[in-house]
């Protein structure tokens, strides 16, 4: 149920790189609550692929720049 995800993200640094965008502002842009943005940022919630693309579009970067997955060994 609370299996940790191996997906990491750079949302926090991207927010600061985009004029210190607040979590509330990002939440408004992708149509979710601020709590959901916090949960995604902290790795406590894996968003759907569609929401992941919306986040990437909000920053104007490719999906790979927002979400990362470790390379298989």
């Amino acid at each position, binding site marked *: *149920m*609370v*299996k*940790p*995800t191996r997906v990491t993200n750079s949302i926090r640094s991207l927010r600061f790189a985009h004029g210190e965008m607040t979590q509330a502002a990002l939440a408004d842009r992708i*149509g*979710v*609550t*601020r*709590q*959901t943005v916090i*949960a995604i940022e*902290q*790795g*406590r*919630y*894996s*968003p*759907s692929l569609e*929401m992941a693309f919306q986040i990437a579009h909000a920053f104007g970067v490719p999906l790979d720049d927002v979400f990362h997955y470790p390379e298989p060994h």
Partner: protein
Amino acid sequence: MSFEERNTWVFLVIAIVAYACYVTIVLVSAGGRALVEVDYGPVMLSTIGGAIVAGILGTIAISVIWPKGAGKSDQRDKEISRFGDHVGQAFVVIGGVVALLFAIVRVDYFWIANAVYLAFVLSALLGSIAKLVAYRRGFQPW
């Protein structure tokens, strides 16, 4: 804390308080008699009805106290809600099976009704707790 998480807390507290009220009233009414002799029907229906009304009033209250985000629900809320309902559903099935077995062996109606009611309460409790754990500790739907 999101609107839906607050709502879940409200429903959890109401489920506990309503069932505690029911059990207390039934035990006091029994007053040493056998429990099956208690007129439990009106008490059960009124606590269930009271819990529904309290739930509606609770939702209105948190909307008034925290108007920002009131009524707002997103994809994560819906996924967590479905997950909690899925966890709670198991107890409804267990309650149904227990009630069925009680009916087959002709146990008093009191115990059949109470087995079903307890299953509903446990379903609400476990479902709410599962949702709150998902909100607090994290939720990975994939």
